[in-house]
């Protein structure tokens, strides 16, 4: 899909300090291969900012700015406005990016404002399902029953008490021209979606499932496997939407029971202890089944 030069464009380059097996850094590299050098990025506080720009080093060979945790969509809005008024917008992609916390929790207001103004910005949410940078605390995108340091399991708790919020549908509710969900487990699908987003004028939202080794507590070699399992179970539906209409879904080739996905991760370990845990796994299976029906994944 990409030329050799594109694949080795070195825009997101080596030397950063992400954990081994970090699916977020893998995805960023894949995304930057598509976006290329005519990109200006505004990045929220979070793992990505911390592991890629320890002064005086930076892994970014494009103009890049980090301001705060909750404002990358607004900072990107200012960049877009500045390029527009000075006649430099053509051919430049303005990229806003943040983690699931920076996007769906504290930054959702600024993001909603940017969507509503339909500014010509691609916003990417790297969803690792918790506030990983600060030590694995829960976010609005933490899945049901996941252990985090602020939703611990215990005598009175199975972990996070609520399911993930449907952030892509919140984006679609703004009737922006393009919303997509991708996964670090499917690099070509991810790059295809980035390419499409790049070609569309207006606000774009892309959410990428990026497994996190220390946060999800699994062996580094399983990052891609887990990302694939999240899709194949139905827990992380991949789709594209234009305005409020879903235009494509990634079909599940072989439906996998959620246990297969859960059992590889320490954050769900407490569900495998007794009968009560089994019932909780059943609830997670229901979420997967509902997704499969809702998005017609099979």
């Amino acid at each position: 899909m990409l030329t050799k030069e594109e694949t080795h464009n070195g825009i997101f380059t080596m030397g950063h300090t992400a954990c081994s097996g970090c699916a977020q850094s893998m995805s960023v590299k894949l995304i930057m291969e598509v976006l290329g050098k005519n990109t200006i990025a505004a990045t929220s506080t979070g793992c990505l900012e911390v592991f890629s720009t320890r002064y005086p080093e930076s892994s970014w060979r494009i103009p890049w700015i980090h301001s705060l945790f909750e404002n990358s969509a607004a900072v990107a809005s200012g960049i877009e406005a500045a390029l527009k008024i000075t006649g430099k917008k053509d051919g430049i992609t303005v990229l806003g990016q943040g983690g699931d916390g920076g996007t769906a929790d504290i930054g959702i207001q600024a993001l909603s404002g940017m969507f509503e103004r339909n500014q010509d910005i691609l916003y990417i949410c790297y969803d690792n399902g918790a506030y990983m940078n600060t030590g694995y605390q829960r976010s609005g995108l933490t899945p049901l029953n996941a252990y985090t340091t602020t939703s611990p399991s215990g005598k009175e708790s199975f972990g996070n008490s609520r399911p993930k919020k449907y952030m892509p549908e919140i984006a679609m509710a703004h009737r922006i021209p393009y919303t997509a969900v991708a996964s670090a487990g499917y690099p070509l699908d991810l790059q295809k979606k980035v390419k499409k987003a790049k070609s569309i004028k207006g606000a774009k939202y892309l959410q990428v499932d990026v497994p996190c080794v220390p946060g999800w507590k699994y062996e580094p070699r399983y990052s891609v496997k887990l990302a694939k399992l999240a899709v194949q179970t139905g827990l992380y539906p991949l789709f594209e939407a234009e305005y409020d209409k879903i235009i494509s879904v990634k079909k599940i080739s072989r439906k996998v029971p959620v246990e297969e996905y859960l059992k590889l991760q320490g954050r769900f370990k407490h569900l495998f202890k007794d009968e009560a845990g089994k019932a909780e796994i059943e609830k997670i299976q229901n979420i997967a089944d509902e997704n499969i029906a809702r998005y017609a994944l099979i």
Partner: protein
Amino acid sequence: MRQVLEGSMAVSDGVRMVEPHVISAYPITPQTHIVEHLSKMVADGNLKSEFIMVESEHSAASVVLGASACGVRTYTATASQGLIYMEEVIYNIAGMRLPVVLTVANRALSAPINIWNDMQDAMAIRDTGAIMLVAENNQEAYDMHIQAFKIAENPDVMLPVVVNVDGFVLTHTFEIVETIDSIEKVREYLPPLDMKYKLDVDNPYSFGTLGEPSVYMESRYNLYNAMNLSKKVIVEAAREFKNMFGKFHGALIDTYKMDDANTVIIAMGSVIGTIKDAVDELRESGKKIGVLKIRSFRPFPEDEIVSALRNVENIIVMEKAVSPGKGGILSVEIRDTLYKNKMASINVNGYILGLGGRDITPKNIYDLVVRAEREENVDGKFIGLRRLE
């Protein structure tokens, strides 16, 4: 041209003259008229700016931050709750050394919610690293905005400048303002912004990177030095403005009837006008009294204050802000300045007045001066309370 202008109109017209590329704002009383005027100018094609109407002050400040990092001229305005909501971003703008100009239509802070004037909002952002100027009247508000961009964009400074304009007392009041006819002359005074470091695909830099303990302190030290250096730049900006446009309202400070004064009132903002009226009357009754106006609160003009107060015996600080648990804020800084300069024998009485729009009349000031003659080393005393006292 001489015109009768509402303060908000004077501010927005001053901003129009510097042709900002990107403006972003969120409405809050008493700033609203400023952004309404600017929106209309853009809608009518009289101002070629990208005006981004955002969903919050936090985003307004973030939008101008992002735009400013691209090397273009930017402006925003707010007040009160909006300002403290923005505060996180203002620290960030200053830390990234971006020359954003921000008007604050000074207003009280909640609770209780109160839309009227005082300076508690400005005091809450005192240490953000933004330069803080205070306008006395609509003419100065107009002129100060043009100067503000010149100060902010000076390569030795590169800091945000906050222009404080008293809410309602100035923003909603009509006064005669002499506006500048020639935009070319303003362009000559304020050349196009030319930033050395900016977001540019042809010359990529990373902004806002992680500053570990090994580098953070140097970064703050540079900011601290830039703030000190800005004193000279503020003085030059005022002087050059006087040469080109004939208007002068002081540089870091301004003084009134100080030559033979043994008592001096120190204050800032629109209350200076009222104080001057009261001082005229007090002088008629034989009192040797003068006024020192703080025009730049940050950087704090210590040297200028010290030389102005050399031969003074009594100081009365009148301020529309308070630090609960301590007293006045300006009064503390004045005392510190005197102490450091071995002038601690001067008596300083610090009074809090005009909070949340409580009226301050020339008579109030006259009475306060008479009362101060009987008091020594007062700090944080509330004046004009209804029942208490």
